[in-house]
């Protein structure tokens, strides 16, 4: 096998996790592809681990699902044993344990996000290899390549919940515009002390970007539309 260190595996999907003043916002696209075919155009890549911790999945669908399933199982038992909700850090470390010890077999990048009473809203990025990095925001998946510059410019500390969600939706939408492996709808999950809110943004609710046109029902509607007003002198 050729050691080409400059070309890591690219992964289908765009996933994002962002902290704000009081919690976290997780976001993802909804495209699952097998080669060039879109196997599922409305997948849910933001998966629940506990009441207060969710994970964004990217890479191999099977690998990310089995890792989430194991961690949900471990966390369930941990919660019973502990007598209170699991922390985001413990959740992230369990994911790390699986990702690191099975690094040769797994191809999945994950973003763990949630809220607990000790640390508030936290985001942990767990890329290929099983490194854990706590970050104020994290991006992942093949679509994230197009967002590094965007976040370098647009990210600010201490955003409000609304600002954070707007940022996430805008970012996923921009990535979908350029990444063939990302598409469909934008899903967001907001987690804070009050609980969890799931949101759904279909393509027509999103801003149009460069070279994108307003969707129409048919050409016929355009042709039949009233022409411009005649000039009057």
């Amino acid at each position, binding site marked *: *096998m050729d*050691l080409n*260190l*400059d*070309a*890591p595996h690219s992964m289908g999907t765009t996933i994002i996790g962002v902290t704000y003043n009081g919690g976290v916002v997780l976001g993802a696209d909804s495209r699952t592809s097998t080669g060039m075919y879109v196997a599922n155009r409305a997948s849910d890549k933001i998966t629940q681990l506990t009441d207060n911790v969710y994970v964004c999945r990217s890479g191999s669908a099977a690998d990310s699902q*089995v890792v989430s399933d*194991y961690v949900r199982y*471990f966390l369930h*038992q*941990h919660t*019973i*044993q502990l007598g209170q909700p699991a922390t985001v850090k413990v959740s992230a470390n369990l994911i*790390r*344990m*699986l*990702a*690191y*010890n*099975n*690094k*040769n*077999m797994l191809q999945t990048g994950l973003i763990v996000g949630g809220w607990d009473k000790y640390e508030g809203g936290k985001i942990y*990025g767990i*890329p*290929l*290899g*099983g*490194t*854990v*990095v706590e*970050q104020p925001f994290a991006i992942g998946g093949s679509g994230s*390549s197009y967002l*590094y510059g965007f976040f370098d410019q647009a990210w600010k500390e201490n955003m409000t919940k609304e600002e954070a969600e707007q940022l996430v939706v805008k970012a996923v939408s921009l990535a979908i515009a350029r990444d063939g492996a990302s598409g469909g709808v934008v899903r967001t999950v907001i987690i804070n002390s009050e609980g969890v809110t799931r949101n759904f943004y279909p393509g027509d609710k999103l801003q149009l970007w460069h070279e994108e046109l307003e969707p129409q029902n048919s050409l016929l509607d355009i042709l039949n539309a009233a022409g411009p007003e005649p000039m009057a002198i």
Partner: protein
Amino acid sequence: MLLILWGVLIQFTIPIDNGDALKNAEADSQRTLYPYVTGTSIVAIKYKDGVLMASDMGGSYGSTLRYKNIERVKAIGKHSLLGASGEISDFQEILRYLDELVLNDNMWDDGNSLGPKEVHNYLTRVMYNRRNKFNPLWNTLVLGGVKNGEIYLGMVSMIGVSFEDNHVATGFGNHLARPILRDEWRADLSFEDGVKLLEKCMRVLLYRDRSAINKLQIAKITEEGVTVSQPYSLKTFWEFQAFHNPTAGAQGSW
């Protein structure tokens, strides 16, 4: 339902029936083939009062400068500093091993504490044994420290090559920093001169190493203890006549 004993769940390998390695190619999958998230050079020197170690805060993902807040130099026990380049997940695992080592050392409660030589020796054994199993920890480690007045600095590579020296560097630092250190290092360097020497090396690395970022930390260890500086950036110099119009003499050249 069995409640899991957390002490046991330190490592979980997803159970798969792979058959036996002699008959089955896939069973040979327990080896690290290549790194994913990597740290670049570490540069370290002995100075008058102890050891100074510098690194940037970057974690590269192939050619992408993906993470810019990774601490690659950590205190180990009371007497040592460990810096790592290479795969960050393996470095994090090494820190876990060392946590356990230090914990067990403290549990003896006998007034003794692990010194840099002992930590270096432990790491050498770990790295070499992994190399023998064709499953290396993909790091080059730099271990520096002071105990009972004795200043120590050494490094271990991913294949278990281990040695001590007055100044060490990993990765690109081998090529770019070592020549500077060979020329300018002295045993009686003050803290200020030591920092300036390291910064000289780090600046060259910033100019010439594609995976370097301009955010670094310098850590110091002396008999008194460890301090890791806050992250900071170095000024760089671009105002050379030759830089202003490099192709004036030969159109089309670079």
